[in-house]
């Protein structure tokens, strides 16, 4: 993208969760390497898709980015300002500009609050519209922007009276009402019916068009992002293994993990069709990481040196990066 200042920049971000020691004799403390040395930038108005299988640390990355989990190491910049160690009021103020849509719309709404109150809550928290009528108007607009029309049908209902898709729209409305600069969408459609997924995805795509919001779109399904992400980052066991423009990643994947993901993706476009690569073995657990390249136990093209050397992050084509010794 352009040379303008990135809206979000992560530098070597790391989030480790300590694990309870299981045996009396184990001396060293162990950690879940949920996010391990992740760096990337998000430009204004850009949609960056973060793709990876379940448990690779996508949600943790998003939560750490908002300081909902304290980063273990590394730095987070928001509009060029280091926000890694913010707390209290400045942190709450920063969160206003970065909104999140959570994975599970059934759990992320308070069952004792009406839809109207839920969507108004961000305004109340930030004391943005003290005038009740003005606040109401903004809530109505947000609900209708999120596709809940007419809003008056929903304002006084409780979350349990709504379908999953409608709830996710409520979450999106609650995020939009603050007019954020960044939207973190954490698998917003993974818990929804296939039939509703396209609607929600179209909604997110159109929001980017009309409002110029930057979106970090988290998903485990390459297929859902292909058509509206500008760039794709592929994550494996807490680390980004490949990143580049959507077309280059989809058409010329560099990392064997990306290739494997793409090969099992059902594609209507025959140009993209490849031989299926079925990965061997299970995802290693993020506590005892494999030595060298963390993908080597499952990598179809692994070489002996892959067990010793952790591959560096290299720009292999212009603006197309990967971490693999064999490309």
């Amino acid at each position: 993208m352009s040379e303008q200042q990135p809206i979000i920049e992560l530098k070597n971000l790391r989030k480790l969760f300590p694990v309870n020691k299981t045996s009396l004799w184990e001396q060293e403390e162990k950690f879940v390497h949920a996010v391990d040395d992740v760096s990337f930038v998000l430009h204004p108005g850009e949609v960056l898709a973060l793709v990876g299988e379940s448990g690779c640390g996508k949600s943790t990355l998003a939560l750490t980015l908002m300081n909902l989990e304290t980063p273990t190491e590394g730095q987070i910049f928001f509009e060029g300002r280091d926000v890694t160690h913010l707390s209290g009021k400045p942190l709450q103020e920063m969160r206003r500009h970065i909104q999140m849509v959570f994975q599970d719309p059934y759990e992320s709404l308070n069952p004792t609050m009406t839809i109207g109150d839920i969507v108004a809550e961000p305004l109340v928290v930030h004391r943005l519209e003290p005038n009740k009528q003005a606040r109401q108007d903004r809530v109505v607009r947000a609900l209708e922007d999120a596709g809940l029309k007419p809003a008056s049908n929903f304002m006084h209902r409780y979350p349990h009276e709504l379908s999953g898709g409608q709830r996710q729209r409520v979450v999106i409305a609650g995020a939009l009402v603050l007019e954020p600069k960044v939207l973190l969408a954490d698998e917003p459609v993974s818990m929804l019916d296939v039939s509703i997924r396209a609607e929600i995805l179209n909604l997110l795509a159109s929001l980017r068009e009309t409002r110029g919001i930057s979106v970090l779109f988290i998903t485990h399904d390459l297929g859902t992002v292909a058509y509206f992400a500008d760039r794709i980052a592929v994550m494996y066991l807490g680390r980004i293994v490949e990143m580049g423009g959507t077309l280059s990643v989809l058409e010329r994947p560099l990392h064997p993990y990306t290739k494997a993901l793409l090969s099992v993706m059902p594609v209507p476009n025959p140009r993209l069709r490849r031989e299926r690569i079925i990965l061997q073995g299970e995802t290693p657990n993020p506590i005892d990481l494999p030595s060298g390249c963390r993908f080597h136990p499952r990598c179809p093209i692994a070489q002996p040196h892959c067990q010793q050397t952790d591959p560096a992050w290299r720009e292999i084509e212009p603006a197309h990066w990967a971490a693999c010794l064999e490309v």
Partner: protein
Amino acid sequence: MSDTAVSTTSIRGFWRSFRRSRMGLIGLFMFLVVVLMAVFAPAIAPYDPKEVVRVTIDDIYAAPSAEHWLGTDDAGRDVLSNFIYGSRVSLIVGFFASFISIFIGSFVGIVAGFYGGRAENILMRFTDIMLVIPDLPLAVVIVALTKPSLWNIIFVIGALGWTGSARLVRSQTLAVKQRKFVLRARSIGAGNMHIIRYHILPMVLPLIVVNTVLVISLAILNESTLSFLGLSDPTALSWGQMLNFAFTRGAMSARAWWALVMPGLGIVWAVLACTLLGQGLEQVLNPRLETHHLAVGVQMVDRGAEVQA
């Protein structure tokens, strides 16, 4: 924000499901009987227990008659009237003491559960200490050392009866705190106070309501016990005090069963009413929380009931 939260529809819905609980209805009925009796005591009671009466030997422990439906006590006063007025003291102590208990318990429980860390450690250690000290002997000591006035008794019972509620509220707070909507509230920039007020409290409140009703019965029982031991406000005649007088002033040897049975029945009635009502409320508030595994659990209320046993 919350002014629409408790709408008339939810109150109507609440009543509709409460009606389905037979035990709850019985409890409510029994509870209302006591409350009405206490409120309208002057209208119902045939005599005024404070009135000075001239007593002859025949009036002491007089058997039930047309004049005194439930006989008289050691001072020749009408047992029925004493009984009706006694409900006032029992209820006053029950309400106020349980409010004190619930207030302290909820505060300690929410602060400990929500903030965690050192605050939680200190508060819960303190709760554990309070829990292992037997309430009654301590209450006896405190009341004996201070003036046994009605408000002292309320305060002592209230200040000693909060530990169960604190633990209950804490565990519910811990559970609610983990839920995704609290994380969402944080992500929109909400501070701790806002989260407690709008997310923790409404989810813990049903538990607090149920617990209050149960703690009322506990407080009534404690007051009766203290009065029975002779530690009560001499000017406030309660059921426990009626029992105390009956026992210490020869009702047994006079075979004046009426002086013993009525206050005893009153205590059992009130305690049973609160327990049934609490259980009925619990049944309704539980599904309304509409949560899978974190709602007010049966075992939680059972623990509350154990405390009072």
